[in-house]
């Protein structure tokens, strides 16, 4: 028999019992719908996490100086400056896997424009910092090496600060007072959004590292009272860069083997990976729960197909008498369960996409329907149809035509 013919016969048999066919595939519909919706939610969460880590900067390492130890009480990392400007230069020049390195000296300060003021984080840094954090300049210019050389009183502002101090007024060329010292606004950074923890990246102001040291913070110029940001040459190199920088610093700080580091290095790529791993686990969990319901749907199909074979024993006998081969009968029932399952799978996809959209709208969750997940779901429901349809179909094809014709 022609394949298309088999499909047509199967479709007619299914349409003959519309309600039963629908109830049979309800399991598959719900199963696939659940898979699609769950994975969409999981993928949406993953994409959000990835985006927030990407906004911190790529291939990022952060080096912090060590802790103070006074009378047995340990301060936190960064409480005792151990990193020097020479360390920074050494990292920049001696570690091959480091592309950029920049110090970030930090303090909180009140910024004042002509008629507004705003407390924000003021950082002293160098031009590389913006490369490391893949932070673009929206207007004007960034910091220049010449600004550092001349300790220029220039400032680059984050989006939020611009909004608070200037509103709709063009900030370029305006003067902002930091600790009562006038700085010229030379650039505005592109909006970067929030960190994974909800911190606003755009609420920040950047001045040249040298100017920061002399005009804003003061103190020993030798040490870096802040952190060093490092951009590795590639994602793969981040790990190596971490250990190479650690070895370099231990060497430079003359730490004996076995002695504790007087600095710490955070690998943000690793953190991002861990986060992504977490959401992946979530996605897998959701998908496997949904997969189980798909399996239950398959059992529903098998159940009804077995009933159907028994009910139609006589029909099978007639078909065999007029010349249907066992293979014809096998295919007829197999195609029936396959058609049921695939149709259920497709309705399930529609249901899943719809409910993912509704959830996204209702709870403000990010959802992401991936086409490969859709295809896999439909194919998998087809596989379920074949696997669970095979036993009833085999049973039908092995009927003895004489017995089948006699069946009441």
């Amino acid at each position, binding site marked *: *028999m022609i394949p298309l013919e088999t499909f047509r016969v199967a479709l007619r048999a299914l349409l003959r019992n519309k309600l039963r066919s629908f109830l049979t595939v309800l399991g598959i519909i719900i199963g696939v719908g659940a898979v699609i919706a769950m994975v969409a939610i999981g993928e949406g969460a993953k994409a959000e996490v990835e985006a927030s880590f990407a906004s911190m900067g790529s291939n990022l390492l952060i080096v912090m100086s060590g802790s103070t130890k006074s009378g047995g009480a340990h301060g936190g990392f960064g409480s005792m400056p151990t990193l020097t400007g020479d360390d920074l230069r050494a990292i920049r020049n001696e570690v091959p896997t480091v592309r950029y390195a920049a110090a970030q000296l930090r303090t909180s300060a009140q910024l004042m424009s002509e008629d507004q003021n705003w407390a924000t984080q003021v950082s002293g840094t160098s031009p590389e910092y913006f490369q490391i954090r893949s932070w673009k300049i929206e207007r004007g210019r960034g910091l220049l090496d010449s600004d550092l050389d001349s300790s220029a009183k220039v400032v680059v502002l984050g989006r939020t600060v611009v909004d608070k101090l200037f509103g709709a007024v063009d900030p370029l060329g305006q003067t902002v007072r930091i600790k009562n010292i006038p700085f010229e606004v030379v650039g505005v950074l592109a909006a970067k959004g929030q960190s994974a923890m909800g911190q606003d990246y755009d609420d920040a102001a950047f001045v040249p590292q040298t100017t920061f040291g002399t005009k804003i913070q003061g103190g020993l110029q030798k040490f870096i009272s802040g952190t060093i940001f490092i951009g590795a040459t590639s994602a793969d190199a981040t790990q190596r860069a971490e250990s190479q920088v650690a070895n370099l610093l231990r060497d430079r700080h003359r730490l004996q083997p076995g002695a504790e580091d007087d600095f710490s290095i955070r690998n943000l790529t690793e953190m991002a990976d861990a986060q992504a791993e977490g959401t992946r686990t979530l996605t897998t969990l959701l998908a496997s729960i949904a997969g189980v319901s798909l399996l239950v749907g398959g059992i529903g199909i098998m159940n009804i197909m077995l009933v159907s074979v028994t009910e139609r024993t*006589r*029909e099978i006998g007639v078909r*065999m008498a*007029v*010349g*249907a*081969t066992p293979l*014809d009968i096998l295919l007829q029932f197999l195609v029936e369960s396959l058609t049921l399952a695939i149709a259920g799978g497709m309705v399930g996809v529609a249901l899943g996409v719809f409910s993912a959209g509704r959830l996204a709208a209702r709870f403000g969750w990010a959802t992401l329907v991936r086409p490969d997940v859709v295809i896999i779901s439909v194919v998998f429901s087809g596989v379920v149809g074949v696997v669970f349809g095979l036993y009833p179909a085999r049973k039908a094809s092995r009927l003895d035509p004489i017995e089948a*014709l006699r069946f009441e």
Partner: protein
Amino acid sequence: MPLIELTQVSKVYRMGDVEVHALREVSFAVDERDFVAVMGSSGSGKSTLMNIVGCLDRPTSGTYRLDGHEVSRMDRRALARIRNQTLGFVFQSFNLLARTSALENVELPLMYGGVPARERRRRAEEALRRVGLAERAHHHPNQMSGGQQQRVAVARALVTQPRLIVADEPTGNLDSRTTVEIMVLFQELSAAGITVLLVTHEPDVAAYASRVVVMRDGRIRTDTRQAARRAATDLAAASALADDAPEASA
């Protein structure tokens, strides 16, 4: 060369520990174009004989040659092919597919024979015309009388232009008038060159065959040739009687 040639055919069913000999070394031949009635009480082996001749079952021993081909050792797939190409079946309970039009019921064997849709439709319409049901092509079995359903079944049997039609008590569920109508059809088919093997327990029906085989206990008891009654004549007489009936009762 005979169309059907059974040689020393036995069929043994095993029911638990008991062996049932449904056929005991039956040798039997039917020439092409013959119209044979097989009679016997239930348990005589006539149904088993029919199943074997109809390639629905295989003999336990002995050989069966159909149109010169040894079919007794063929597998299920090959037997299905023979049933489709060479044979047609008519059953006591019609065995039409429910909720399927007469036309599609008649098309069924052609579908398994791989005949293209257009050709199938044409031949099915032709077969329905032959049994006088052209205008009922789109009726479903439950919209037709028993006689009409059996005509559809006959159309389904003849649509593949088989060499042999096997009919198992085809008139068992019909009244005497429609019985004659169906027998007219079988005699027409026989006259057109199709061999007919008809299983019945009614002597009235067997009278329309040109050869009567009587079975008992798995063996052929008698095998006689006879002058067949003409069904068409009986039908005309019955019609005349029916036309007279109103006056008679008046």
